[in-house]
C-alpha cells in the first residue's frame, strides 16, 4: 500500500464492524471448504465417514451445539445441514453471512456502494439457496456458490475501497480469521502430519493429507512447489511457514502486521498490538519445521492460536472498539 495521507477520522464502531464483517465472510468461506473436503473423503470411502464429520465439527467448534440440537447422526446430510443452515447453529454459514451483512449495514457509511451491494447480494443469494435443506446433488453447486459470492465481496473490497484505515481493518479481520482457521484446520489433523514411520505411505495417510490440502485450497499450490509428492513435513511447512501460500499462517500474520503498520504510519501512533504482531510475525519468519515438531505440532498450533486471539483482543483495545 502507498504511504498514508491524512483522511477523516474513523469511528471505532465502524472499525469494529468492518473487522467482524470480514471475519464472518472469511469464516463462512472456510466452512464451505471444510465441507467440500469432507464430502471428498466420503466419496473416496464406501459409506459415511462419521469420524471425518466429527473432526470437521470439532474444527469449527460446533460439536457441543450439534450434539445438543441435532439427531447426533454424523452423516454427510445431517452435518452439512447443520453447518450450512441450521437455525440452532449460530456459527452456520447462513448465520455468518447474515452477520456479515448486518455488520455491513452498520458500517454502511464506511464502505462503498459496490461493497455493500455485493454483501447484500451474497446474503440474498445464499438465503434463497439455503432456504431449505440442500439436496446432495445440489451440494457441490451450493458450496461453489458460497465461494463465488465470497469472492465477489472480496473483489468489491479490492476494486472499490480507498486504501485507508477502513481497508486496513477489512484486511485485519480477514487475515486474523484466516490465521485462526488455518491453524485449526491443521490442528484437526496434526496427528496425520506428525512424522510417523509406521504411517508413511499408507493409503489412509494419503486421503487425510488430501483432505487437509483441499480444506485450504492448497492442492495446486503445494504440488506446484513440491512436485516430489506428499510428505508430512513439507505439507506442514507449506501450510504454516510458506508465505507464498495465501492461506498459510505466516502469510496471514504478515498481512495483519502490514495493515497494522499502515495504521501506525497513518495515525502516527504505535500500540501494544503493533509489538505483538511484529513478535508473532518474527517468530513465524524465523521458525523451522524441526523446531515446531520438537516443541510439538499440536502444542505449537495451540500457541499460535492463542497469540492470534490475544492480538485480536489487543487490536480491539488499542483502536477503542469499545467504550473504555
Amino acid at each position, binding site marked *: 500500500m502507498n504511504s498514508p495521507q491524512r483522511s477523516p477520522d474513523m*469511528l*471505532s464502531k465502524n472499525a469494529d464492524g468492518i473487522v467482524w464483517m470480514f471475519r464472518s465472510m472469511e469464516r463462512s468461506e472456510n466452512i464451505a471448504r471444510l465441507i467440500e473436503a469432507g464430502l471428498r473423503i466420503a466419496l473416496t470411502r464406501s459409506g459415511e465417514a462419521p469420524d471425518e464429520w466429527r473432526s470437521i465439527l470439532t474444527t469449527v467448534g460446533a460439536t457441543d451445539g450439534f450434539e445438543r440440537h441435532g439427531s447426533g447422526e454424523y452423516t454427510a446430510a445431517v452435518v452439512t445441514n447443520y453447518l450450512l443452515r441450521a437455525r440452532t447453529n449460530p456459527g452456520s454459514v447462513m448465520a455468518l453471512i447474515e452477520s456479515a451483512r448486518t455488520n455491513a*449495514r*452498520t458500517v454502511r457509511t464506511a464502505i462503498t456502494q459496490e461493497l455493500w451491494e455485493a454483501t*447484500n447480494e451474497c446474503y440474498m443469494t445464499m438465503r434463497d439457496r439455503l432456504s431449505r435443506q440442500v439436496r446432495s446433488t445440489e451440494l457441490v453447486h451450493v458450496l461453489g456458490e458460497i465461494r463465488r459470492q465470497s469472492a465477489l465481496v472480496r473483489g468489491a473490497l479490492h476494486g472499490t475501497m480507498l486504501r485507508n484505515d477502513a481497508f486496513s481493518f477489512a484486511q485485519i479481520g480477514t487475515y486474523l480469521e484466516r490465521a485462526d482457521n488455518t491453524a485449526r484446520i491443521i490442528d484437526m489433523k496434526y496427528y496425520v502430519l506428525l512424522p510417523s514411520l509406521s504411517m508413511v505411505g499408507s493409503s489412509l495417510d494419503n486421503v487425510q493429507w488430501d483432505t487437509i490440502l483441499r480444506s485450504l485450497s492448497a492442492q495446486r499450490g503445494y504440488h506446484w512447489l513440491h512436485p516430489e509428492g506428499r510428505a508430512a513435513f513439507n505439507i506442514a511447512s507449506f501450510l504454516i511457514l510458506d508465505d507464498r501460500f495465501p492461506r498459510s499462517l505466516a502469510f496471514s500474520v504478515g498481512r495483519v502486521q502490514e495493515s497494522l503498520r499502515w495504521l501506525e504510519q497513518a495515525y502516527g501512533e504505535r500500540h501494544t498490538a503493533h509489538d505483538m504482531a511484529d513478535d508473532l510475525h518474527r517468530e513465524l519468519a524465523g521458525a523451522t519445521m524441526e523446531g515446531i515438531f520438537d516443541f510439538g505440532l499440536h502444542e505449537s498450533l495451540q500457541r499460535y492460536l492463542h497469540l492470534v486471539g490475544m492480538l485480536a483482543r489487543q487490536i480491539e483495545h488499542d483502536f477503542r472498539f469499545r467504550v473504555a
Partner: protein
Amino acid sequence: MVDRVPFDEMFGSSEDTPRPPYREYESWFREQDGNWIQRKSREAEQFFRTTGITFAVYGEDDAEERLIPFDVVPRILSASEWSRLTRGIEQRVRAINAFLHDIYHRQEILRAGRIPQRLIAENSAFLDQMIGFNPPGGVYTHILGVDLVRTGPDRFYALEDNARIPSGVSYMLENRETMMSMFPELFSRLRIREVSDYPQRLRRALEAAAPPACKGTPVIAVLTPGIHNSAYFEHAFLASQMGAQLVEGHDLRVEGGRVAMRTTRGYRPIDILYRRVDDEFLDPLTFRSDSVLGVPGIMDIYRAGGITIANAPGTGIADDKAIYSYMPDIVRFYTGERPLLENVPTYRCSEPDSLGYVLDHLDELVVKEVHGSGGYGMLVGPTASKRQISAFRKVLLADPANYIAQPTLSLSTVPTMTRDGLSPRHVDLRPFVLVSPGRVDITPGGLTRVALKKGSLVVNSSQGGGTKDSWVLDE
C-alpha cells in the same frame, strides 16, 4: 366533496388528451409495449432489494425488511406549476422559522392574541430549554418536508409541515436513480430537473449553520437510533452521500466542552449533528432519563455554542396539528403577506362547537391525533365502516383535545401501473426544503406518495402506500 370526480394530473377532465406537462411522457408511453413496462416494473423491485432500500413496519410480527412499492409512472409538474408552488412553500417555511424564533423569545404572536396562550403553554412539543436561545445561524428547521395535496389544476393545500425529522428523501433520490437506469431514453427526451445533488445541498445548508465553536471545515455526523429503526437506510444513505459520520448515542459523549465521537484515535469533536432522533431522546440529562439514543449533556453544549443540532430541538411546536389550523395567521403575522399556499380547513376538537360539528359529521371527515404521525390512529370517515366510526367516536370523546378534523379532500390522481394497465390513484407530494441562514432551498420535485389501493386516500407506506418519481420539467 368526495363524490366529485377527482382531478387527474395526466388527463385533467379529458378522456384522452394529456395535460401539457404529461404530453411528451404520454406519447412515449403509447409507443411502448405494455408488457415490457410491466416487466420493468418488476425489475424495479430487484433494483431496490439490491440497494437495500427497505424499511421495517412497526407492529408487524415479522420484522422482515420490506420494500415500499415503487410505481414506474412518474408524477410530472411543469416549470410554472413548480415555481408557483415554491413561492408558497418558501413563504410558509420562512414564517415557520420566524414563528419558532418568536415563540422561544418575545412571543409577540401570543401577545397579539393570534394564537391562544394555552396552545403553547400546555404543549409538550414546546421546550423550555429553548427559551431565549439563538440556534447557530438563527436556523430552526434546517430540513423540512411540507406535505402537499392537490385538488385541481391550481389548487394545492399544505397538509402537514414536517418540521421535526422529515423522512423520505432517500426515496426521492433512489426513485430517480431507478427511473434513469430503467428508462434512460426518457431522460434524453424530456428535460427533467436534477435532484441528485440533494446530499451536497444538505451538506452546504448544514455547514452554513456551523456553531461558534467550529474551527475549519465542520465535522458533520448523522445521529441514528440504530440499525433497527425503520429509516436506518435513509440515515446511512444520507451520511454516506454527504460524507458525514453515521453515529449512535453510544458513539458520542461530552468531552472538553464539545460533543465528541469515539474514533480509532480517540474522541474527536463534532460540529454539526443532523439528528434523526426525537427531541425527547436527545439528552437523558434534560429530557427522558431512560433514553439510550441520545448524548448525556448535549443540551448544555448546544446552549454554550459547542454544537449545531439540526433540526433544533423544540421545532415540533410548529408542526403540531393543533397549531396547524393557525398557519394562515402565522404566515400573515410574520410575512405581512397573504398566504400563497392554502391550509385545509381544520376543526379543533378542543373547541365545543367544532367538536359538536365533528361528531355530527364523522362519516365525512378525516379525524387525526394532534401528535400522531404515519397514518396511525386516524379515522377516514368516508371509507370507514359504521362500527369503526362508532368505536372512534368513543375514543374521540374520551380526549377531544387530542384530535383535529378536516374535510376529506378529493385528492388528485396520477395514472399508476396496475395488473390491468394504467389506472388513476390518489397522490400527495412531499417537497424537501433546506434552510440555511438567510436562504431557503427547495429541491425540484420531492417524494410523491401514492395510495395503491383503488379509491384509497391513505398514502402512508405503513398503510399500503407506494411512491413515484417526481419530475419538474425545465422551461
